[in-house]
């Protein structure tokens, strides 16, 4: 059975987990690969105008797979941590995919919901495995193997590898190499690591001689500590990571500047942005650039803003260094 995995949205987080699980079960996995111009434009033409950019990209990936595979794998992640939810678009994603393929290709959609406890999730994974094999041990072995690879992948991200090298299991290509200027690029995985929609922002920054820090590289306990300080807890799973990372970077001056990557019109981000900008200002924190991208974002305007931001940070850094020298003299 040929199973397609669309390379959009949560693929940027669980891609390794999904592919290795399905492969261990003996399925032939077909990935739609990285986003390209044609994927984006087919997605944009099919999706509703009001959808956010990643959903449009996701539609494009689904359409690219539609006629190549026997089924498309679009799990429904309701919650990945107790007491939190993912964004509504992810709750409805399998149904959106079904509309996108016009019922031509079946959609495999297990529901993962940590609000309902481990047992429900185990059952969901098991019934997914039953589609491929009737041997329960094989399913369990595949699950354990996939989980291990997933942990390894996340660990690599934490160590500062970029998404592509971490997926391939390579150890080179570190985003953070100890250069002088350090910028945090924080946002959803599918906003930060998608090289096409972000016009390879991470590579560009590193070619400008800037170290990049992503939300994965901010230690988890720092992020959690920051979230505890908020008057109202954030109930979106991934927004917790984003807000936690931004606030931790600000409070502990981990970086010289923060780029908050937002795709238009991302619901949770529009709200979290208010919170982050205000807390950042209150703490007298680091410069924060909220970068909103959509399918119409032009490369010129995008680059100008990045360059201006980096220049500003360099100048600020230079001033600080001069002040230190003056004090020393």
């Amino acid at each position, binding site marked *: 059975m040929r199973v397609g995995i669309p390379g959009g949205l949560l693929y940027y987080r669980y891609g390794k987990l999904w592919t290795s699980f399905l492969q261990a079960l003996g399925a032939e996995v077909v990935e739609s690969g990285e986003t390209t111009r044609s994927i984006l434009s087919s997605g944009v033409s099919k*999706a*509703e*105008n*009001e*959808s956010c950019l990643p959903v449009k990209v996701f539609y494009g990936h689904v359409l690219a797979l539609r006629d190549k595979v026997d089924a498309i794998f679009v799990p*429904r992640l*309701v919650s990945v941590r107790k*007491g939190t*939810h*993912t*964004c*509504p*678009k992810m*709750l*409805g994603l*399998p*149904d*959106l995919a079904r*509309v996108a393929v016009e019922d031509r290709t079946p959609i495999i959609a297990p*529901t993962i919901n940590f609000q309902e406890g481990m047992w429900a999730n185990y059952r969901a994974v098991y019934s997914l495995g039953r589609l491929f094999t009737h041997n329960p041990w094989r399913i369990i072995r595949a699950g354990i193997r996939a989980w291990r690879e997933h942990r390894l992948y996340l660990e690599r991200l934490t160590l500062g590898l970029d998404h592509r090298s971490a997926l391939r299991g390579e150890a080179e290509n570190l985003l953070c190499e100890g250069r002088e200027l350090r910028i945090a690029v924080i946002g959803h995985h599918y906003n930060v690591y998608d090289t096409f929609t972000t016009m390879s922002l991470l590579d560009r920054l590193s070619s400008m001689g800037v170290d990049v820090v992503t939300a994965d590289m901010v230690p988890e306990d720092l992020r959690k500590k920051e979230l505890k300080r908020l*008057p*109202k807890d*954030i*109930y*979106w799973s991934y927004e917790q990571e984003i807000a936690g990372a931004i606030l931790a970077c600000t409070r502990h001056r981990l970086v010289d500047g923060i780029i908050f990557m937002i795709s*238009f*019109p*991302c*619901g*949770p981000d*529009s*709200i979290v*942005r*208010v*919170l982050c900008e*205000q807390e950042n200002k209150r703490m007298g924190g680091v410069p924060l650039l909220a970068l*909103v991208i959509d399918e119409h974002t032009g490369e010129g305007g995008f680059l100008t803003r990045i360059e201006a931001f980096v220049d500003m940070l360099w100048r600020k850094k230079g001033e600080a260094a001069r002040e230190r020298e003056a004090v020393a003299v």
Partner: protein
Amino acid sequence: MRISWPHMGSLEFVLSSVFEELGLEYVLPPPSSQRTLELGARYGPEFACFPLKTTLGNFIEAIEAGADTLIMVAGRGPCRFGFYAETQRRILEEAGYEFRMVPLEFEPARIPTTVRRLRELKQGRSWSSLFRAIKFALSKAYLIDRLEQQALHQRCLDRERGATTKALEKCYRMVWKADSYASLRRVEEEAFALLLSLPRAERETVKVGIVGEFYLVLEPFFNLGVEEQLGNLGAYVERNIYLTDWLRPSGRNPVAGHHDRESEEAARPYLTHFVGGEGLHSVGGTVLYRRHGFDGVVHIMPFTCMPETIAKSILPQVSRDLGIPVLSLVIDEMTGKAGVATRLEAFVDLARFRRRAGERGLDLSLQPAF
């Protein structure tokens, strides 16, 4: 303490009845206007949903009118609504307004906090008097909903355009003045008699259902009076959300006559999971309207509303499969009245054409949604 809250449909009658009953001071925010919209759009986040901006505008105008305590309902997602109170508090504080925001959360884990906040709000009045006041206000809300429903049904038969709307406003005032269950019963009889006594014309009507995001469906100023426009175009209108559904989640649709579960079942072939807000019920409601013989469905949503965007992506398929025209109206601060009016006119024409064709047994090719 001068308490205020944002407008939402006839919520003002309900809450002011509670505070009047308790003898507490409150401030009604000025009626929503273009200025509310401008204030909200100026201070609100760029692509936050439209209701956040409009209620923010209401809050600013309420503070200007002398309110110092603002009530807002909060919750725990997945929709953004649960975070409104916190976001609006931050925005208003940054803009330099002085006030206190009281977010009320009604979920099991947060009940103790909510009880503490309610205790502050009631300022020494007894709990039993608070409950009595709320109960009485709920009966008012229920009556208002039934009156609104009656108005929706009969507006298309008005011999004189606007007569029903005028009568409905009179009914609102009558309900507002009622101060005991006995007078409420009297008001009920009088109000229904008033609505039913309006002169009616013999006219061919079409049946149009309204689904969508609750705030926008309930707020005639911000949805540009879709219900009234549809009624004036000769449509028998029904909506799947009334205020009491929202005030009493357990009693969902006591007025419209179908239930939560029913609507979820109906949505199942298209949308199988709760997506926050009213997304699931917008899809389910459309299917139910089709089953009940309606000729078309108008779907109202604010720009960038997350659950309704999902519904909007799925509704074209529902429309194709079941052969019911669906018009999605996406509304934000830029939406013009004329554009909406034109689309509604075209839509009612389409629905009427399809109804006639259906009555004559003509074969209707599948209509694309628009």
